[in-house]
């Protein structure tokens, strides 16, 4: 009895004559995943964990961070690098500046992009107008930093070669040292960021606006809604998932902002940001422990934005 059942089972298993290699056993999926996993583990997972480990180590990774404690000063033991990353004066400045970047650059780019996308949607020279706005995207952040450094240039001599100061002096004003005055320099840098990234937001939002069903808009206008009302009551709600994705993407980009600050002020004059501090700790001060701790803090700050971003993105995909 038992023997016949076994025999039947064998026969049943043999019936679909599929070559063995094509059968999806336990191993085959891993073979497909393998290359991606190897790349991920080598370049993302391993460095990630190593960074976490180094953040608990001292200046060059030869001992625990506790060693960096100075007698008579507060000490967080093995978390000493995090004491620096979370409580030092320069890092507090960096956090504050990153907040400024988020609160000015994100609304600036998203609202600016939305405005331009909406307006351009109604004119005949749309492609041309959008190209102009998109153009800065083709320049690297470093290139843009150099260009704007000239725009903001402050000459201590009689001649102003900076575009902005040339304007100011031709209108009879006093030249301003835009990049060194703590009251205005961070905003001056953020303007460069807005100039760079508005095109990106505009392109994506413009595509979403074009996807708003025409019948909805027609129905609204039949019901007597003017452009203003149908924009707020129809267009915006329909493209809201896209707006959210663009916003969270910008938040992530802004949290990581580095190039503009590094090129234009080097983080001096109170313009420090988290990513620039991380670079300075690693490559100017050769303090691996602190740089790693700042990197970990930066990742932790970014994770919520990333999670939200991916979730919204999936929701948007599901809607299609």
């Amino acid at each position, binding site marked *: 009895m038992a023997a016949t059942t076994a025999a039947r089972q064998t026969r049943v298993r043999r019936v679909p004559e599929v070559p063995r290699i094509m059968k999806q056993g336990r191993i085959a999926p891993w073979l497909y995943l393998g290359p991606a996993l190897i790349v991920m583990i080598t370049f993302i997972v391993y460095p990630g964990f190593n960074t976490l480990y180094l953040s608990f180590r*001292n*200046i*060059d990774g030869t001992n625990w961070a506790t*060693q*960096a404690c*100075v007698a008579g*000063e507060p000490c967080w033991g093995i978390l000493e690098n995090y004491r620096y990353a979370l409580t030092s*004066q*320069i890092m507090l400045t960096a956090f504050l500046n990153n907040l400024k970047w988020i609160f000015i650059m994100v609304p600036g780019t998203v609202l600016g992009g939305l405005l331009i996308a909406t307006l351009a949607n109604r004119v005949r020279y749309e492609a041309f107008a959008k190209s102009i706005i998109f153009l800065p995207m083709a320049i690297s952040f470093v290139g843009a930093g150099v260009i704007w450094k000239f725009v903001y*240039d*402050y000459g*201590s*001599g*009689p001649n102003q070669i900076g575009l902005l100061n040339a304007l100011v002096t031709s209108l009879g004003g006093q030249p301003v*040292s835009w*990049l*060194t*005055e*703590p009251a205005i320099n961070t905003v001056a840098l953020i303007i460069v960021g807005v100039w760079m990234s508005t095109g990106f937001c505009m392109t994506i939002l413009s595509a979403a606006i074009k996807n708003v069903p025409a019948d909805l808009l027609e129905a609204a206008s039949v019901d007597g809604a003017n452009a203003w009302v149908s924009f707020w009551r129809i267009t915006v709600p329909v493209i809201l998932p896209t707006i959210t994705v663009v916003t969270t993407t910008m938040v992530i980009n802004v949290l990581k902002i580095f190039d503009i600050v*590094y*090129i234009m*002020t*080097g*983080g*001096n*004059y*109170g313009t420090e940001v988290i990513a620039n501090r991380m670079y*300075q*700790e*690693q*490559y*100017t*001060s*050769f*303090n691996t422990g*602190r740089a790693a701790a700042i990197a970990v803090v930066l990742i932790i700050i970014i994770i919520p934005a990333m999670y939200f971003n991916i979730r919204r993105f999936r929701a948007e995909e599901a809607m299609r």
Partner: protein
Amino acid sequence: MRKRSWILLLVLVLSAALTVPAQAQSSSIDCKGAAKGDTVSMLYQWSGQEEARLNQILKPLADACGLVFKPESTRDQALLDTRVQAGTPPDIAFWTLASAQRYQDKLFTMDSLGADKSAYPDFFVQNGTVNGKWLALPVKADIKTIIWYSPAVFKAKGYTVPKTWDELDALVEKMVANKDVPWSMGFESGDATGWTGSDFIQDILLVKQGPQYVNDIIAGKVPYNDKGVKEAYEIYGKWAKDPKYTVGGAQGTLSTAFLDAIYKPFMDPPQAMMVKQSGFAGGEIQKKFPDLKYGEDYDFFQVPGAKGLQGGADLMLSFSDKPAVKALVTYLASPAGAIAWAEAGFDESPNKAAVGHYKDPQLQKKAEILANTSGFTYDIGDTIPGGFGKAEWTAIVNYVNGKDLDTELAAVAKVQAEVLKPAAATMAATAAK
């Protein structure tokens, strides 16, 4: 009898004169057993003309021993670190003292590679010694404790080169009274912004306190917020923050690029009377104003009253002790190498044998200042590792930008204590062994 001895003496002197240089050229190069075709990989931050000069200096060695140099030039400060971390350091790096401290366990001592201490002034050997090991051979030096000015402008306006600090102070005040701006200052230098300020302050420390004080700061014996340091900042700040004393006042100092600051005293009309800048400024002035003549239109004097010099030196560090490297170290430390260095005009050679062999009058003048100094200190910020330099620049930038001096200096002193504490601990640990 008398006549014959004269002739004999003449023959002896002549033959000596003829043979000595010939010997210096050929037989003084010791290949240390390196075989023809042996390679030496080198990493440095020189390029263009600097690289050409280095090649000129190394050519006699390459010809004599058949060595092949594999140089790599980079502007990336982080590259050496990356290479060492990866386990593939170059045989030789022309780099900084901070690297010598950082890699002290991986480097070979210069004595073991064939360099002779007595060829260099004591302070150079002392400065290159880490925990009792001489790891860094000074190959090229430049001095910072000098002030550039225009002799033509000084003459026209009736100013004279000051001999003491008080005379300098009086000269500055006289210029201000005449409505001339005495100083041209400029900090802007990317993420190294502030270094011209810290250079100036170190020179003031050399005037007011002397080289021992500066070396005590480097060793951590004097905290950076000591009253001597504060005094130097205040002297500097008086000039750097006031448009009467420097072009554009504080904002001018902060936002002017250090190169632009070098040009201002030599423009027509001059925008300032003096600029304190290292020896390299001469080359920059010549490049910008090819018509100006050294000695007439531009010249320099030592910061008056300085009891020692501040300077930078490019140091040779060796990660290998193979014969080809030994041959290179031995050659560069020998009189032949020093003379080749002086003749190539690649800044100053700290080697004692180089004096008198410079072809360029500027280099010769600097060599004399260097030969006559009683002390030499490296840049404080370059020497203390672990973020001190950056902290120092931040402090000077913030101070000139109007922040409170005591707070800024305390912040630097904190970094100084932090980074020098582990070093002191390792020193104690090695001593205990």
